[in-house]
Each structure stands twice: as C-alpha cells, then as structure tokens.
C-alpha cells in the first residue's frame, strides 16, 4: 500500500509540476517554487524516517507505543521521502531559469548551478533511492546486505542537510537555521542513544515496563 501511494504521489505531483510549467500556471517561476517546496517536504520526511527508524531499532518510542505504529510511520515516511525527492529533481529539470538537463539532476557534480552542493544532493538522492528500493525488495535481499544499505540513510540525511545549507539562499533566513539545527540535533541525539547508549535505553525501557500502569 505505501509503495503504491509513494509511486502515485511522485507521478501525480511531478505531472502537476510539468503541467503547471507548460500551461504557465503560477508564472515563470512555478517550477522553481515547486522545487523549493518539494525539497522541504523531502527533507522533513527523510528526517522523520531516520528518526523513527532509530526508534524502531531501539524498540523504544515513549508515549506513542500502541497509539501510532512507529514501524509503519517509518516505512511510509521513507517511501514518501523518495517520492518528493523525485518531484524535486523533476521540478529542477522543468525550471527554465536554472536550465538543468536531466543528467544534471542524476549525475553528481555536473550541474551548472553550484556543482559541489548540487552534487552532494544528487548523491543523497541516490542513497535515499537505494535505501527505499532495497526495503521495497527486502524479501529478495540477504539481511546483511539490506542492513548495510539501510545504514546509508544516515549519510543521505547528512548530505541532504549539507546540500540544503550550501545550495540555497533560504539558509539566510532564521527559520531555516532553526529547522536545520533541530534536524541535526534530534538525529544526533537519537543516534547517540542508538549506538552509544543502547544499554541505558534497554534498562530504561525495562524499568518502565516493570512499573505498574506505564506503557512500555
């Protein structure tokens, strides 16, 4: 279901961007506006996927266990992150101002606009694609291979963040500073719990379970 939804969202949103560009809806900059909006949505979804993935890995999601299925949240946000990454690339290619060729959005470091920053974004997009597509086909992959590919989501988020900071002038606005700082800090904190304080989390979880009337 989430695979179908993700593909549908990517196709419909990309078609809307191309149609708006061809029909001139929203003016000359409509594709550029779509590229900016899709970038934010993709980054937010990728952050949500990584953050909830760490929660799933730790089997620890205080306060929401039993109310929001975290694993499902993780799957859907990851799939949708890929959808909006595709929309972002399509919108950049459709934009007449930045003049991206299709390969500029697919091959790192060849784009005419800020090639280093754009190249990091292209690598992040490929990593997201690898992580999501390997999960879609997880039944056919050896578990170890799937796990190694899945770890690339950390690199994808980090590269996506650097790409956003370096490739855009939204970075000059203070809400963007807050968003980037919140994304980095929350994932670093969760990764600390995941990799360096796992025993403490397990003990804390066991303590919560043993206490009467508290959900685990």
């Amino acid at each position, binding site marked *: *279901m*989430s695979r179908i*939804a993700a593909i549908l*969202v990517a196709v419909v949103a990309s078609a809307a961007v191309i149609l708006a560009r061809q029909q001139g809806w929203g003016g000359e900059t409509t594709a550029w*506006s779509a590229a900016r909006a899709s970038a934010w949505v993709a980054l937010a979804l990728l952050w949500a996927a990584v953050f909830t993935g760490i929660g799933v890995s730790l089997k620890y999601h205080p306060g929401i266990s039993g109310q929001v299925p975290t694993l499902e949240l993780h799957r*859907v946000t990851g799939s949708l992150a890929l959808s909006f990454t595709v929309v972002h690339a399509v919108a*950049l290619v459709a934009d007449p101002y930045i003049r991206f060729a299709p390969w500029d959005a697919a091959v790192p470091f060849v784009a005419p606009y800020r090639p280093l920053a754009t190249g990091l974004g292209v690598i992040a997009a490929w990593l997201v694609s690898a992580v999501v597509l390997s999960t879609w086909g997880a039944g056919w992959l050896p578990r*170890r291979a799937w796990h190694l590919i899945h770890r690339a989501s950390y690199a994808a988020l980090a590269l996506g963040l650097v790409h956003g900071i370096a490739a*855009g002038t939204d970075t000059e606005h203070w809400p963007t500073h807050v968003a980037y700082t919140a994304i980095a800090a929350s994932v670093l904190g969760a990764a600390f719990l995941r990799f360096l304080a796992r025993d403490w989390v397990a003990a804390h979880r066991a303590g919560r379970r043993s206490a009467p009337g508290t959900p685990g």
Partner: protein
Amino acid sequence: MRSRPGYHARVPHRRTNPFARERQHWLTLLLSAAAAAAFGVGWVLYGRESATDTAPPLPPPAASPTPAAPAPTAAGEPPAAPTATPTRSSRSS
C-alpha cells in the same frame, strides 16, 4: 508486527518483506495526503514570494534624491541602461 516464533531460526539469512505485513492503510493514506498538502501549500507560498520578487519595482517617491547619471563612456556614447531582470531571492533546493 512480531514475527512468528522460530521464523528467523528457520530463515536466518533473509529478512521478511515488511511491506507484506502492512495493516495501517489509514496511516499511509493520511501521511500521503498530509505530505501532498504540505507540498501544495509550500508551492503556493513560494510562488507568491517569487511573484513579489519578480514584480516591477515601485517608482521612487518624488521627494527622494535621484541617483547621479552614469558617466558616458570614453567613446562618448551613453552607457547601456541596466536590464530589469527578475530576481530570485531564494535558491534553496
């Protein structure tokens, strides 16, 4: 979401396809709709901002001092007037 007891002992090198066990379709639909709505709202808001950026500048008030005219070139020809190109204040991608 728990796998059957002994399943991983029988198939230790494979990971079960998590999408085969999806049950919360409402969550998929809700999140997809929310993400699409967020994209639409962002698209409209950025479009309005771009329209403001590309709008022609207002004429200066009458009382304001006019800037000095640029000096003619060495050949005596007047310098070319700057073209009014639309600006794009934000280049985030």
